[in-house]
């Protein structure tokens, strides 16, 4: 029986994997993950088809805003509410901060939030939390 032809599929993936490996390797030489820092009044986090918040970690100052933009064809949410998390580790709020959520963000939609309590916020996308769509906002004084 002739085996299934997987090469046409695999070749682009292999090249892509190689590229990722090379990039990762180069990064390993001098770069640890560096959170994006707010340059002005706020930062933008993109929601992707790959089920990522990009960047996965941002740092802003108290009073700054973060804007999330759904750049994917999927519906996503931006949610930080321990009551709605499938895994407790996927939601974290500093003491005194209140849970928040965007509701469903259709493709192209945005959600903006100003942070007034310093600390670490761990948030997730409700439909894709289990697929690893989890990220962090660090708010500094």
């Amino acid at each position, binding site marked *: *029986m002739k085996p*299934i032809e997987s090469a*046409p599929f695999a070749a682009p993936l292999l090249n892509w994997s190689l590229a990722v490996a090379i990039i990762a390797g180069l990064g390993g030489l001098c770069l640890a993950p560096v959170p994006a820092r707010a340059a002005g009044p706020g930062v933008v986090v993109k929601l992707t088809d790959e089920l990522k918040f990009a960047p996965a970690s941002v740092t802003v100052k108290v009073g700054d805003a973060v804007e999330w933009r759904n750049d994917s*064809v*999927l519906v996503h949410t931006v949610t930080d509410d321990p009551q709605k998390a499938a895994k407790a580790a996927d939601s974290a709020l500093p003491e005194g901060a209140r849970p928040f959520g965007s509701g*469903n963000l259709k493709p192209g939609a945005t959600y903006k939030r100003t942070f007034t309590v310093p600390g670490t916020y761990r948030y997730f996308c409700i*439909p894709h939390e*289990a697929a690893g769509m989890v990220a962090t906002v660090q708010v500094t004084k």
Partner: protein
Amino acid sequence: MLKLSMPRSTGGLLGLSSALLLAVSACTPGRAQEQASPDMSAAIQKMQSLDGWRGYLDVHKAVDKPRELAGGPVTIKLTQDAGGVFVGLPDHRRRDPIVFGPADMPRHYAGTPGITGAPPPMWQAAAGGGQETKPLTPFGDKHIVLPDGKLTIEAVDATATDAATTDDKVMFHASWKDKAGNTYEVKCCAKLAAHGLEYPTFGGVATNVILHGNSGIGTPLMPTEFTYFAFWGFGEVDMNGKTLDKPRLIHGMLTEYVRGQDYKLANDEGVTPQRLQFHLMVPPFKPDMEHGVFAHAPVHTGFKLPNGKEMPFWHVMFETLDFQSHRG
């Protein structure tokens, strides 16, 4: 002689299981059966005869007045009105040792390979350890995301068991687009599978059951998953408003979430019970009613894979869901 527990002795079986499972290969329709040797045909018939549901199905499939579901009928309404879909691509499926057991004492090998059967010769060593299916299957990690997914289902689960007739009902319509703007649709169900072949269908609609994995109902290549609602019926596959394939077996199910990090298909230990997914499956098989088994038959989907071949099945996930259900 077929020895299911001794993979080295079953080279012929491997060929046939690959051929059957891999309707996915997008080869010429019917080619797999045409190439099957007498030994392979005997092996597959042997495995089909070992299917453990045969007794249950034989008893129930002639019942013309089946009993009603305990507590009365359940009405289901399920929709997705915005957002994309995840489309599963042909891929190898990692072996879940919890479901399939150790290689020397395998479980879930009986039945048509790819339906309920996953015989030892179907497995190979996987990069990084463990095993994976040698053939490509609809049940792997590879996928693409496509836009404009819409889903409308109205269903009633009234009949409790498999039977000759059913009071279950399903109206199903799903559509999505590719990035070139082509529209793909699946419609169902002009007819429900009132009884199953190789495994039960509970009258065509089932609610609050466990499917796949260790359940023995449906392919064990999917994880064991609690299923709030499922149906099996016959419908059509369309592209840009034109019917490409009809009638086709259509299976849908609303389950707990069975994808993990980077959307990899979970093993049993990676299922997330608190989240929901709807799965649409148009399998590359057709029922052979005369023999009570399934036969290889790629689906004419019209969708071109990256390698230029036609996708021979649809395995589509909807995840932005509005789900309502009630008794009565």
